[in-house]
């Protein structure tokens, strides 16, 4: 961390381009948090690269005064993989949407996760195709009526975190546009994680899918419908932390902490290194309905694991190879093993 980087502010990370999202779009908040966090992290601007695909969210790189590329639809993870191999010292941030990252780009995303490049992926999930004006996406709930599904979608949606876990992602988290503080914390943790950090961010598209996450983000309902995970801490939630989660076998159950029957000490303690328990949390995915109680939707870091990064292993092989064979000798390569002379 350079001394100078320390003194930068969010403004230094703001480019001169007009931000062109719809007024009220959740993207603004994400941009703000990223611009706030970057100077705190202390990486020099010139060493930061934002790579995106196509979508409303993918305009993101234009608004940051760092290096950036607005790529093509779905390919940001692949572009970034090449970039990271080319220069492992860069701090690489991938910006993608639920269509960009999970529909057309799903394959690159899962391959990036298994290879575990040291990058941060911000998946803006608004459960809709914003830029193309409102078709359903792979995260839209079943039955969703959109321009392309006038009778409701018949696609069973992805659970993006479960998918990432299935692809052996090493850092899997969720946050939301409406909770700036939480988002900033998660962004910082993601940056610290060595490996591919995937953050799904619930983002409101107020034009084509307004209120998709209202039940989780609205002050009125948030306490009851969400649970904020902290590593090593018991799983409490609810108004005044009045509720908690316990595990009955592999089934999470809600317990009331006010009745006196259970105390915080009885609760499930979140362990982000436990693959199976974090998997159970990822599957807490039912949508709250007025008529039935469901498990709260978890936010925070579900899972984290240390595993070598692709670019490091690759550069290690290069180093070993140079060590063994010496720096490549171009003339020896041109000459090959068998030559003859014509005099």
């Amino acid at each position, binding site marked *: 961390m350079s001394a100078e980087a320390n003194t930068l502010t969010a403004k230094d990370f703001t*480019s001169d*381009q007009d931000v062109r999202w719809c007024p009220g779009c959740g993207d603004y908040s994400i941009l703000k948090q990223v611009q706030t966090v970057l100077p705190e992290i202390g990486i*020099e*601007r*010139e*060493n*930061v*690269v*934002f*790579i995106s695909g*196509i979508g409303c969210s993918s305009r993101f*790189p*234009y608004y*940051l*005064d*760092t*290096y*950036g*590329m*607005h*790529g*093509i639809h779905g*390919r940001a993870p*692949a*572009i*970034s*993989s*090449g*970039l990271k*191999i*080319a*220069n492992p*010292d*860069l701090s690489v941030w991938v910006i993608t949407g639920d269509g960009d990252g999970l529909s057309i780009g799903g*394959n*690159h995303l899962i*391959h990036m996760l298994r290879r575990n490049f040291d990058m941060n992926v911000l998946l803006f999930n608004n459960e809709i195709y914003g830029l193309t004006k409102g078709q359903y996406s792979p995260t839209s709930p079943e039955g969703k009526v959109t321009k392309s599904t006038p009778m409701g979608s018949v696609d069973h949606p992805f659970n993006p975190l479960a998918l990432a876990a299935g692809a052996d992602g090493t850092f899997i988290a969720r946050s939301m546009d409406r909770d700036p503080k939480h988002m900033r914390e998660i962004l910082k943790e993601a940056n610290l994680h060595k490996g591919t950090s995937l953050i799904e961010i619930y983002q409101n598209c107020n034009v084509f899918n307004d209120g998709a996450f209202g039940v989780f983000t609205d002050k009125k309902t948030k306490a009851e419908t969400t649970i904020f995970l902290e590593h090593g801490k018991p799983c409490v939630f609810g108004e005044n932390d009045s509720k908690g989660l316990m595990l009955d076998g592999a089934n999470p159950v809600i317990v009331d902490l006010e009745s006196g029957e259970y105390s915080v000490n009885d609760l499930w303690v979140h362990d982000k290194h436990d693959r199976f328990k974090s998997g159970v949390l990822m599957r807490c995915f039912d949508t709250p309905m007025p008529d039935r109680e469901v498990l709260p939707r978890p936010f925070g870091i579900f899972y984290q694991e240390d595993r070598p990064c692709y670019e490091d292993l*690759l550069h290690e*092989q*290069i180093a*070993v*190879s*140079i060590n*063994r*064979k*010496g*720096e*490549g000798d*171009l*003339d020896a*390569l*041109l*000459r*090959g093993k*068998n*030559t*003859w*002379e*014509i*005099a």
Partner: protein
Amino acid sequence: MEKTKSPETVRMNEERRDVTILFAGDSGDGIQLTGSQFTNTSALFGNDISTFPNYPAEIRAPQGTIAGVSGFQLNFGSVEIFTPGDMCDVLVVMNAAALKANLNRLKIGGTVIANTAGFDKKNLTLAGYIDGNNPLENNSLGKYRLIEIDITKLTREALKETPLGIKEKDRSKNMFVLGFLYWMYNRKLGPTEDFIRDKFAKAPELIASNLAVLKAGYNYGDTSETFTTRYEVKPAPLPKGVYRNIMGNQAVAIGLIAASRKAGLPLFYGSYPITPASDILHELARHKNFDVRSFQAEDEIAAITSAIGSSFAGNIGITASSGPGIALKGEALGLACILELPLVIVNVQRGGPSTGLPTKTEQADLMQALYGRNGEAPIPVLAPASPRDCFEMAYEAVRIAVEHMTPVFLLSDGYIANGAEPWRFPVSADLTPIKPPLRKSAGGEAYMPYARDGKGVREWVVPGLKGMEHRIGGLEKEDITGNISYDPENHQKMTLLRAEKVRRIADFIPEQALDRGSPDAELCILSWGSTYGAVKTAVKEMIEEGYSVAHIHVKYLNPFPKNLGDLLRGFRRVMVPELNHGQLVKIIRSEFLIDARPLTKIKGLPFTASEVKEAAVNTLEA
């Protein structure tokens, strides 16, 4: 007992100008290895050479069948050699199917060397010789000289003292053939012996057995009284210098590495395996000590986009594939084009459309290279003429990509990718310098990502450079600043600037030379890519025979050399032979409004010189 038929053709120590041998057998018979050993030995001896391996599409097609036949043709001579030969002088067949599949490629009076063990009942049936009718025995080969050897038996005998199993013993029968041919053509065993020692370094028993069989084959020729004739093919009067043998794909790989070193840029190679391009990946992956970063991506789209990402970060991004994989890269090519980043795309063409004929050669992706993407996205296209030329053109592709900040297509094909020829390799110091327009340090005026120099080329600034932070993308960009712009006039301007930049590359490539013939000949044969050797041979012969014909071979297909149109207008007729349904000919007609005529062949096989010659003679005499 082996016997030699038509003993009247047997003479002693004959000298030959050039010889074409076709090795053929089951894909498990080690044909490719036999062929390439003979090639190397002959090259080391000083012959000029050209080779053509031709293998089946299946990994192991059913043993003994026609579909399973693998072939390796080589033409070596004391004269300059431009093709693997139209028809063979010698056909080596390890089984009946190999004979059936290839007899039509043998010259009348040519020699068949047949492994009699491969002509048992089962093999005859599998090859489709009905009722076990053995061609070795029914006089059907009367027009040829037939040398029958029970290679399998002799190999086993040579190894009878060793503890190897039958299967393992049989595996070295190709060495017997090789030894025998070395005797026949007066070759030394040394190079192959070295190769064997190297290859089986970890299995000494295999070194011993292979060496034994190789010698047995040689001695068989030497001692067997029936074989009194040996041939001599003297070294070719090639230009002075040090030579090596090289295959096309290998030359591409080496050319790319050489260019990356001379440009001072790490080489990033993003690719996804596909026949016949995979060998470039295999070769590059071996040279990590040249700071080569090879990345086997999840698909072709990731291959090219990762290469684009690497170029953004200051590597020279390269990607390669064959037709179907290239088709997948179209969208990303547009991105590279509008970003104006360097990138090299190698297409080792194969038979299409779709999966087509994956192991066969074709030149049918020229239009795809020129136009296979949306919008106006001009990309320079180069094509090597021969295996060794792959080095030069790969090097050129990187040079143009880097110095002109553009993606560049390199169109090779299956024929030159796997073919080999002697190469008077250069010394690294003599290679053309490559100067990337790379800003090394910050400062000065604000960086304008799409400001251009006199060549119309923008400056390349790479992440990590302080104060030069900038964003690029696939939306139309404002001239100079690179900011997103939807302005109509700007779009037209940028489209024209990008086109102009590519057009101006013509100022930085060699003018078109006449390969042979007079500039006002009656007929010009205009070739590109791998048809070079066949056309060159045909034109040489025709000129010797007094025809008014000339040969132009184009290696720069976009932009064309500046003088190409003028040159072409000097001829009364222009014929364009292509291994496709007529692609370059379309461009020539459109560009120069010349009534150029196609000569097409779409058989997955290269032209023979005589096919070209026949068509040319017909045109002239029509």
